[in-house]
């Protein structure tokens, strides 16, 4: 093999990794943004894993029932996204009511919400579909976007072999950033996570802000879950593997991103890169030659999380009031 071939192979691998990385990064990004809204309003949201799976399940269920109607796959995807967002929001109410109104322990509530969904999906899928989840056969995958996909380099990097989830995700990132930093509501939400009593004293309804924060995390979590099902699971959802800890990885992404939207975006790319190494290892020549057990690649995102957290947690910028129920009477 001469150096020219090697270079060509290297470029192909690079394209392959970028093309595969983006659909993985988007669910992480959206769910981490959801976690950010929730935590910056003062509620720890460990239930993201469950919210994702809930959104993914109902999104896929919707796809399952409309897949024979001949609708355009991309329209189905958009409608499924709306279904995922609505179901994620509804499910997040279970957390916000418990955490905000009933002042429950947020970690325990979140854990319970994570456990209900896989069991529920297995229960219903086995009874009605005789399988462990919902399997759909709509092709959401886009091999090449017209015009844009023909642009040299950029076209191949960002507009070939992809899903529209990538563009929706980036659009949502922009919207979230603007909402978070440039609107009055965003400022109020952030105040409730830092010093709820100060916020309360200037007339902000802390309870409502926290409901908003958790609700947004439900919407983004539900969308993220459906995008996970579309972009990683090929339109399927399964009660056994669920979303493979992506809700928890998203929490790590959020911490690594220091609870800030743009940083979260780069953190999501970082984690998505590790996640993409597992399926692409057979394509990368020197990794292939090392003959490493596949299990190490599966562990990589989780291990990378720990390494990153070990370095970033000392000077953590966590919202000061997160996890503490707000009690109006307490000073």
């Amino acid at each position: 093999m001469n150096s020219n071939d090697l270079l060509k192979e290297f470029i192909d691998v690079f394209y392959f990794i970028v093309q595969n990385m983006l659909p993985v990064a988007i669910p992480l990004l959206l769910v981490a943004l959801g976690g950010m809204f929730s935590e910056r309003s003062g509620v720890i949201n460990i239930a993201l894993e469950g919210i994702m799976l809930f959104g993914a399940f109902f999104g896929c269920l919707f796809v399952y029932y409309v897949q024979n109607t001949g609708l355009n796959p991309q329209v189905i995807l958009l409608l499924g996204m709306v279904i995922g967002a609505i179901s994620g929001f509804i499910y997040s109410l279970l957390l916000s009511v418990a955490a905000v109104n009933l002042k429950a322990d947020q970690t325990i509530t979140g854990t319970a919400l994570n456990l209900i969904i896989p069991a529920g999906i297995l229960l219903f899928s086995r009874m009605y579909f005789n399988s462990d989840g919902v399997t759909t056969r709509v092709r959401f995958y886009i091999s090449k976007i017209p015009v844009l996909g023909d642009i040299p380099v950029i076209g191949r990097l960002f507009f070939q072999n992809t899903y529209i989830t990538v563009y929706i995700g980036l659009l949502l990132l922009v919207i979230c950033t603007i909402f978070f930093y440039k609107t009055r509501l965003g400022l109020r939400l952030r105040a409730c996570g830092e010093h709820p009593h100060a916020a309360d004293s200037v007339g902000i309804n802390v309870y409502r802000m926290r409901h908003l924060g958790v609700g947004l995390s439900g919407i983004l979590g539900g969308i993220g879950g459906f995008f996970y099902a579309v972009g990683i699971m090929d339109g399927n959802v399964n009660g056994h593997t669920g979303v493979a800890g992506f809700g928890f990885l998203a929490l790590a992404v959020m911490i690594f991103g220091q609870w800030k939207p743009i940083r979260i975006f780069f953190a999501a790319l970082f984690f998505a890169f590790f996640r993409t190494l597992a399926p692409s290892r057979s394509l990368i020549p020197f990794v292939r030659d090392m003959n490493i057990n596949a299990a190490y690649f599966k562990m990589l995102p989780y291990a990378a999380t720990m390494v990153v957290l070990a370095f970033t947690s000392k000077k953590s910028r966590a919202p000061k009031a997160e996890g503490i129920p707000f009690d109006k009477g307490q000073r």
Partner: protein
Amino acid sequence: MHNESLSKKNVFHLKKITGSKAFSTFTAALLAILLGLVFGFIVMLIASPPNAVPGIFAVLTGGFRRIADVIYYATPIMMTGLAVGFAFKMGLFNIGASGQYTMGMFFAMYAGFFFNLPRGLHWIVCVAMGMLGGLLWGLIPGVFKALLNVNEVITSIMFNYIGMFLVDMWIQTTPGMYVADKARTAYLPASAQMPSLGIPNSGVNISIFIAIAIAILLFIVLSKTTFGYELKATGYNRHASTYAGMNGKRNIILTMAIAGALAGLGGAFAFLAPSSIPGSSVTYEPINVIAPNGFNGIAVALLGNSSPIGIIFSSVFISHIQRGGTQARLFGYEYEIIDVVISVIIYFSAFVMLMQEVAKKALRQLLDSLKRSFGKKGAEKASDAQPAAEIMAEPELSEVEKEGQK
């Protein structure tokens, strides 16, 4: 309370019992269980209406037909429950019991397959190895928390995944441990299996006694030793305990290590159990799924209010409805119905104590308003009525209690 002096005479004993903290945590647990079962029943109704009543009946009573199995399956979740509960006492949420359990299982099995030891000693070494494996896996979140300030919840979850992938890989790549045709581990030698209690068709073994002994030991550690006191003090207020000169960092690492060791023992107990069929043993299937017994431990710990003694009973209860869940299959319900019930129980345990407070307050207000509207004479009656109302609230709970203890 305004009418306390009036009612004191009549209900002194009742008040003493119903007013105690232990009683209210007990009723809170019963309330969470009741809500969990009601929710499970609703799910069953939605899933298949005609079978819902016999189905829930099977869940509630199925365990009585297989008491030995209830005890057998209670042992591992008693250990993971203790692992979660012990860390809870210090304000640490050990969601990593699954990983610690899996690691304990692997260490115990490894010793079972490859240590050549005389009968009678072999299984003891295996159990000790299981404890060591869990301890190592519990130590990691402790070190991360104490020295690097990383939230133990995230660390534990990540190490659940890492531990599961590692163990599955180790098992699949260790010759002599794995039977590739069956995709399961091989049968353990008889000397590595724990002595059976001799009940036919059941794997129940002496580990239940070891587990109960450990629970009692933990109770003593928590209530009678300096370490236990420091642990609880740190759980109440970390800053105050640091100010009082307690070594918070050391205690965090120690607590997590002990919690890990307990979960590891759970893994050892689950897989070193004797088989009712001679020449076989309990086997493990490496399919990249996180051990559910770690999560069941969370439910056990919450229902037992993190008290080691409470956990003994709550683990038996959870095991009881799990066995009942296998019976519900006869009516077309999948076993996962029990996982739904258990997670709903966890959900309600998070704020059921609060609900109780709210209910008590509402009751008190109702009685006060009754008192006002009936004038002075009514006041005495109302004060009598109050403890009566407290009793009134009980029957529905005590029914559940009876069912649970039948």
